[in-house]
């Protein structure tokens, strides 16, 4: 069986600047891929291309076999995507917003209500279900974005910094949630928090200046008594000139 996420030589250029340079990888069911790299390394750009938001300059991305460029609606149906910064409509209530995304995804009636309720339960949002999103704290907003991505129980999850802005307890909850879902899904998370990779990921990719530098299980990176942080620093600071 083909992998749920297949990326082949994905490239994005902005003018003369190459943000993502021939990135290839695939993610199978049951894998949690940690996407690491310094700011501006191309993490979000890669995720945007994978989610079908940004058209790649070259290369292909497939979700459950559907090409995101040729067959976008089909690909997006199998995808739960948390964009960078967890954008939501600020004037909507939490349940109104989730009901909106559920409607677009084709759920109706009691099934829709159930899906919304379950997504709110998974992300501990029941207490604020009728509050306008703009009145919520950063951690709650992030979880609303996460709930939106989980709502349709997609086989593929792409989460751009899912735990950014959460307090330690909430981080723990989200990691537990990702771990629980992991066996049945292919999950990609980008993060700056290296301990998170150890905690939830079965595999780590380090990307710098648009290129994949390392693709290995986190344990394999920590051999010879080096911490993941030391590995990360030595790999991404390899050249003195830092990527913008």
């Amino acid at each position, binding site marked *: 069986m083909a992998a749920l996420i297949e990326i082949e030589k994905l490239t994005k250029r902005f003018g003369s600047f190459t943000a993502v340079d021939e990135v290839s990888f695939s993610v199978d069911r049951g894998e949690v891929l940690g996407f690491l790299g310094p700011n501006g390394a191309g993490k979000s750009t890669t995720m945007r291309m994978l989610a079908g938001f940004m058209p790649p300059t070259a290369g292909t991305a497939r979700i459950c076999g559907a090409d995101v460029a040729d067959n976008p609606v089909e690909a*997006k149906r199998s995808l739960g995507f948390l964009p960078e910064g967890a*954008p*939501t409509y600020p004037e*909507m209530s939490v349940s109104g917003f989730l009901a909106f995304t559920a409607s677009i995804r084709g759920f109706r009636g009691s099934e829709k209500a159930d899906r919304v309720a379950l997504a709110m339960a998974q992300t501990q949002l029941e207490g604020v279900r009728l509050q306008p999103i703009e009145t919520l704290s950063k951690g709650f907003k992030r979880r609303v974005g996460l709930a939106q991505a989980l709502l349709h129980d997609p086989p593929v999850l792409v989460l751009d910094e899912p735990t950014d802005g959460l307090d330690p307890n909430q981080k723990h909850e989200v990691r537990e949630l990702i771990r629980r879902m992991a066996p049945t899904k292919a999950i990609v998370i980008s993060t700056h928090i290296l301990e998170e990779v150890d905690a939830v990921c079965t595999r780590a990719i380090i990307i710098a200046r648009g290129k994949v530098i390392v693709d290995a299980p986190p344990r394999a990176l920590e051999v010879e008594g080096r911490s993941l942080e030391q590995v990360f620093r030595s790999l991404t600071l390899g050249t003195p000139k830092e990527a913008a």
Partner: protein
Amino acid sequence: MGGMFRRLCDLLAAGWLMWGPQAGLPCRPALIVGRRELAAYFATPVAYVFIVIFLVLAGALTFTLGGFFARGQADLMPFFSFVPWLFLFLVPALTMRLWAEERRHGTIELLLTLPLPQWQAVAGKFLAAWAFCGIALGLTFPLWITVNVLGNPDNGVILTGYVGCLLVAGAYLAVGAAVSAATKNQVIAFVLAVAICFVFAAAGSPVITEFLSNRMPALAEAARGLSVADRFGGFTRGVITLRDLVYFGSFIGFWLFVNAVVLDLKKAD
């Protein structure tokens, strides 16, 4: 008070989204997007400011410059003659935030990664703005009641006049939406949309056509043919022709197509 009202609106919007009538139409995603968008207008002061200013200006112009009473005729001609010019400024104010707001909140990334064809998102946003203009127009009903109390107007003509107003609003909205997709800057979106709409509004005016017919007679005819105001004139006299409907339909369709293309090119900028 404001907060309570807002809460009520949110509740209504949430309820509407949960249990609203949902036929199995192929354009269902567009309707869902449109419904959310329309609810969003009323969740912010935009809707109220727009409607109040529109009603005040429409009323004031009709009764002062339009000479509603002095004319001694029971019709809404003075009102209809001002509506396209009011829309010229008010509609771009409505559309300038259409895509800019989505960009500012980053929700464009969310909306366009949901499983719906991009044209449905474009159509949904347009439909919401159009429905909103329809609501604003509908709220001018006291004028209609007034002429019916004062005399015996031809209500058929009044109805076609309203249809014409709605089509003019649709035409300007489509232009404004396309411009809004092209630029992040709301001021630029507003000014450009007014300018483009003005070209189409004024193309049939005597100043332009006389100028053109003296120099380039062929262009004068083309300008008249493209003029929104000229097409609208028929509606205010109670005449709906297929040509005019095709004109408005293709005008709106063209600009929505431009909107979708521009959006596709610039969405990630």
